[in-house]
């Protein structure tokens, strides 16, 4: 057995080694089961720690989101008041430091007005009222691929996931939202700014559809709410994919669903589903 210290193996698992060292370590554990098992155990420890910290952040995001929803004065608990105040002070500190650092012209309206007026604002962008413009904007999202993803393939989620991953050029999550009351209806490929954009549509028992959009790209991992007229959205990015959950559901429900999707593990690498041929059928049997 080759001796490799935990120092080296932890640095390997954490991605702290140079490429040459990484290759050398990989060469050793390819030939040594004990080292390979140790690396696997360290990787598992690393992944479970990351997931644990992600779960704490999800709880904090839910808390902050809850603070942004207006509440009756009489229902404010002591802790809610503290959190609202905290949110206000936090924003003031961030803006104040940004002003110091970047010279932004800022004032702090409401900072001295006690806790009641301080809320985390959900941004609202105006929606166009001209239907022709709206239709033209929606049409700009269509691409050849929008039409080429055959409707008959929609009954096979693996095939849909594979096709969308191919179109997007990276793996993406296609979550099952049935426990949240939304069933998968269909998915399609669109385009935005010349790059592929995927849309996965869900329907609840009533009301308008819920859509999960995904586009290749980086961004903030924090769940961010924004409104476009009646449409509420939550945006975040992970593993090189930027997601946008959009719908007319309540803010708290959208945030809960977005949190669930974000906490789901990344999908495994997708390979093409087996074609249904007589030979494959016989092999499967």
């Amino acid at each position: 057995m080759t001796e490799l210290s935990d120092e080296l193996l932890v640095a390997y698992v954490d991605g702290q080694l140079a490429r040459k060292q990484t290759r050398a370590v990989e060469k050793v554990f390819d030939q040594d089961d004990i080292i390979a098992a140790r690396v696997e155990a360290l990787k598992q420890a690393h992944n479970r720690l990351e997931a644990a910290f992600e779960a704490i952040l999800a709880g904090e995001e839910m808390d902050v989101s809850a603070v942004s929803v207006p509440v009756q004065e009489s229902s404010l608990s002591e802790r809610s008041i503290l959190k609202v105040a905290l949110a206000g002070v936090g924003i003031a500190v961030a803006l104040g430091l940004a002003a110091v650092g970047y010279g932004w012209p800022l004032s702090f309206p409401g900072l001295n007005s006690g806790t009641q007026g301080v809320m985390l604002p959900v941004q609202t962008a105006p929606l166009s009222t001209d239907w022709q413009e709206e239709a033209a904007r929606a049409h700009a999202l269509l691409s050849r691929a929008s039409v080429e993803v055959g409707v008959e393939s929609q009954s096979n989620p693996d095939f849909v996931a594979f096709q969308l991953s191919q179109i997007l050029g990276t793996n993406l999550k296609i979550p099952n939202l049935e426990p949240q009351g939304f069933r998968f209806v269909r998915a399609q490929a669109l385009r935005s700014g010349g790059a592929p954009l995927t849309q996965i549509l869900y329907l609840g028992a009533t009301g308008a559809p819920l859509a999960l959009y995904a586009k290749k790209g980086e961004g903030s991992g924090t769940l961010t709410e924004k409104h476009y007229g009646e449409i509420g959205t939550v945006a975040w990015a992970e593993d090189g994919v930027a997601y946008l959950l959009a719908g007319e559901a309540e803010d708290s429900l959208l945030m809960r669903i977005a949190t669930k999707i974000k906490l789901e593990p990344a999908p495994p690498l997708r390979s093409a589903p087996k074609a249904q041929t007589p030979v494959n059928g016989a092999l499967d049997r």
Partner: protein
Amino acid sequence: MLPRLMRFADVLVGERGEGTGLLSRALHCMLAEQYRYQVGTALDVWAFGEIYRTWLHELRGHPNPVAQAKIADAGFEDLFYQEIDGYLDTPVVGFLSGLPAQQRLTLLLVYGEGFDHEDAGRVLDVGTDIIAARLVRVSAALADRLSARPPAPAAAIVETLYPEGLRG
């Protein structure tokens, strides 16, 4: 950024109510002493450092700082969002709650926040070698704990001591 600051304070003190209070006091200090912020410093690194320094300052003023720094398991478990299938990684939660605050924060900054060792060291006011040493020690201990086989039940041990062929 606010959820990240809240997580940092909560993980530091091990409980949400206390964490909210600590963050509130630290934010007030930051606001009052914002002249100490140096242009070019990452805002999150500075803010995390200020929360940590506030906690350390308050702890030093306490008559029994060691007892004060210990955290309760129940309050710590509540920090983890469990809506998805009610899943709680109990071994990891138990392991984290048993760590000293500085080691817990090292893990949070590197594995939770994705900070490099230098930035994590800046927040906790230690060198990169200490950060690296803490990561090795804690990761190795957790890996050992997660890969340890459960103890064999007593009946199984008796069976091994007295195999069938040797019984009267």
